[in-house]
């Protein structure tokens, strides 16, 4: 089956997610959809599967215009998908989740024998180790991902959309998936494959379409004519400029944050590091390596079960962010801007001032909006937050400006130790460079930064030293020479060494 997207546009409050995007999918082809976070890939997939409706443009199935008001309509037309969000019912069994679209019925009742038999058939194509009768909530993240793929396969769809299906599964499982995709392709299925891993795209895709900032950067190009270099340039954009970060002397200043053999309730073991004043210490690791969990533990979100944490040389136990900020001047910029970083329905002014209300309050614990505005204004200016007014609702700003606001509140709070988690996810290139320079600036002013990122170029641009985390342990430390080739190789070799010894 062939599927074409013609000139589709879609806006959300504050963002133009897709702008005149067209795409051609042919049966018997694997089509890679590439682009940075926030480029519009997921939105496009959601339009094809009837989750979102386009503001303009149309979808053609075998040349005929179609409209999918609901996911159900898209399913009925033979379009199946693995979305990025977890889409399983936690209390249902693996088998029932896989077969949920069309539970087999015998005599008016769900035939569970058939459910598990059928589910087994699809699951076996990927992984024989998962029992179809256990509840999904007991599975690991990787196992859930496998179940989701099996679920999409079970639809026997003519168009199959896979949005980052390999994000959290092993290489072995990825290989099994690829064998399967090639088989489906030979049966005439049109497949869209979204991934950030270039190796995977080169291994499996026939054609590639690249999105950048909601627009087409390259359309339907044959993979055989694509080079790695060109693909990256297309994704990142021509005007890419690497942030210039001033080199800082490392290790010379005093230690402000120190972990000694930390073990946590998340499963971290023997985590030790030292963060010096004015230093940017990188914490690199793949998804699931335990980076964000470590950050969370520093602020009381997890339990420290062993070892010790020291701030400014004194051992501490931090119970909450409230305590971390109030007592130790520590701040945390979350990777999840919308859920943890900002209060979307409140104004720019309130979002920045939230950390300093106590300081602004007068005798009766009252805060005058005017003094609040006065305190906030310098940061809005310094960070060049593009907003019509500081009273604008943050939810109406673009992703980049939202991120500036969530950084601004910690600058306003004069945090001395800042844990920054994936600072540029879903942010346009220009703002990204700006945020990199900003992080460099605040470090130069003496703020100590623990930078968590899975974005290798970002890490190499910013960090002074890089800790490599894998499987909830620190598996190595790399002195950053700010050269991509050498440092990235050094980092990956640390990870591979651990995987080999484990295997």
């Amino acid at each position, binding site marked *: 089956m062939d599927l074409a997207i013609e000139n589709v546009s879609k806006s959300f409050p504050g963002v133009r997610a897709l702008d005149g995007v067209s795409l051609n999918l042919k049966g018997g082809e694997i089509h890679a959809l590439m682009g940075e976070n926030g480029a519009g890939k997921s939105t496009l997939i959601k339009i094809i599967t009837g989750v979102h409706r386009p503001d303009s443009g149309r979808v053609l199935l075998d040349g005929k215009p179609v409209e999918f008001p609901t996911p159900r309509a898209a399913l009925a037309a033979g379009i199946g998908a693995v979305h990025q969000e977890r889409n399983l019912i936690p209390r249902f069994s693996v088998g029932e989740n896989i077969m949920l679209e069309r539970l087999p019925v015998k005599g008016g009742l769900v035939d569970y024998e058939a459910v598990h038999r059928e589910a087994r058939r699809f699951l076996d194509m990927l992984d024989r180790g998962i029992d179809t009768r256990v509840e999904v909530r007991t599975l690991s993240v990787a196992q859930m991902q496998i179940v989701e793929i099996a679920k999409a396969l079970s639809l026997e769809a003519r168009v199959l959309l896979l949005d980052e299906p390999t994000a959290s599964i092993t290489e072995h499982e990825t290989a099994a998936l690829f064998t399967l995709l090639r088989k489906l392709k030979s049966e005439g299925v049109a497949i869209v494959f979204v991934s950030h891993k270039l190796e995977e795209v080169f291994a499996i895709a026939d054609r590639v379409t690249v999105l950048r900032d909601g627009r087409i950067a390259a359309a339907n190009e044959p993979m055989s004519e694509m080079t790695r270099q060109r693909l990256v340039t297309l994704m990142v954009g021509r005007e890419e400029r690497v942030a210039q970060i001033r080199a800082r002397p490392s290790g010379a200043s005093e230690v402000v944050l120190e972990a000694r053999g930390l073990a946590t309730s998340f499963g971290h073991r023997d985590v030790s590091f030292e963060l010096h004043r004015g230093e940017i210490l990188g914490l690199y690791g793949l998804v699931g390596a335990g980076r964000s969990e470590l950050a969370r533990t520093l602020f009381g979100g997890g339990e420290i079960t062993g070892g010790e944490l020291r701030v400014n040389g004194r051992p501490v136990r931090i119970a909450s962010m409230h305590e971390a900020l109030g007592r130790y001047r520590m701040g945390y910029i979350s990777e999840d801007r919308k859920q943890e970083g900002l209060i979307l329905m409140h104004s720019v002014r309130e979002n920045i001032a939230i950390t300093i209300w106590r300081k602004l309050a007068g005798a009766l614990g009252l805060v005058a909006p*005017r003094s609040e*505005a006065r305190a906030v204004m310098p940061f809005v200016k310094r960070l060049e937050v593009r907003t019509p007014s500081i009273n604008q609702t943050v939810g109406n700003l673009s992703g980049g400006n939202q991120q500036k606001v969530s950084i601004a509140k910690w600058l306003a709070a004069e945090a001395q130790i800042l844990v920054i988690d994936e600072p540029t996810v879903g942010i346009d290139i220009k703002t990204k460079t700006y945020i990199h320079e900003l992080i460099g600036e605040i470090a130069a002013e003496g703020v100590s930064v623990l930078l968590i990122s899975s974005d290798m170029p970002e890490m190499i641009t910013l960090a002074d030293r890089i800790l490599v985390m894998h499987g909830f342990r620190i598996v190595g430390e790399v002195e950053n020479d700010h050269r991509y080739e050498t440092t990235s190789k050094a980092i990956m070799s640390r990870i591979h060494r651990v995987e080999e010894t484990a295997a």
Partner: protein
Amino acid sequence: MTTTDDALDAMPKRGINFAAMSSALSLVVIIVVFWAFFSWRQPGFLSSFNLLTLGRALAIDIVIGFAQMVVLATGGMNLAVGAIGVCTVMTSGYLMQTLGLPIPVAILGALALGAALGWLNGFAIVRTGVNSFVITLASANLFSGAMLILTKAVPLNGLPPEIGAFGKMRINLFTPALPVSPLLIIAIVIGIVLFILYRYSVLGRRILAAGANPRAAAMSGVPVDRVIVISHVLSGLLAAAAGMMLVARLGAAMPSVAGEDWLLPSFLGPVLGGTLLSGGAISVVGTMLGALLVTTIRSGLLVLQIGNFWLQLFLGLILLVAVLADRYRGIFAERRRLRRAAA
């Protein structure tokens, strides 16, 4: 600093809950229409006697609405508002009649009990992580069950006469034709305090932040658990205040007066006034206007002698119409905004 000040002046003065403002505006219109209708059908509606009675009832409805509103601000709800109210009513009666304590002491005791019961709610919610609906549903029955066991549902009629006299007092505002109950003045003062609390105080701002997005608020150093407990304490305190006003109005402590009867009014005021159930946005003025609408309809139906039986139906329909209207206004505004953004 001059540039900063210029930029400040170019901006709207302060953040305004526009949704609440527009529903407040339409509420005023609806209220005026009802007043016009009732006084046209029955001039007695505007008699000084009826205005005084209406004001007394209004005062209590407002404070009951506030008791719910302060918990709605956190994104939770308090089904125990009525139960706490009735517990404090009976406690104050017990302190005054049985123990013979002076009135101010009895009132303080009752307020303290309200705050304590509210604290229990908040503590249980924060500790168990179970949603406030279930906790307060259970605690409502726990509280009123305990009250009934202890009082055997016997009303206390022998309160000091001063308290009833206070409830019946009239303060003539401008002319004797416009009598105001001191209860109403108390309710308005409470409203002003709450307005300042949520608009200008650190605590109030933190409550709203925690209500709008608890995770983000916690990540910004707001002690979310503490803020939720405080909100429930405040709710208990306000429920107790409403209870005390009721004792003054009736001149007696009745065990049957609150309970589930307060459930609907407690939600009517805030919801009609534009307070979000999802938390993070409240409207003090809206809640007062919502209560005024409810009291107006109740009083109007009474003077028209339609009878109390249909009142429930009207209140239910008004609530439905109000939330529907609000919804469609919201959708309309959103569409207009999107169209502007696209242009």
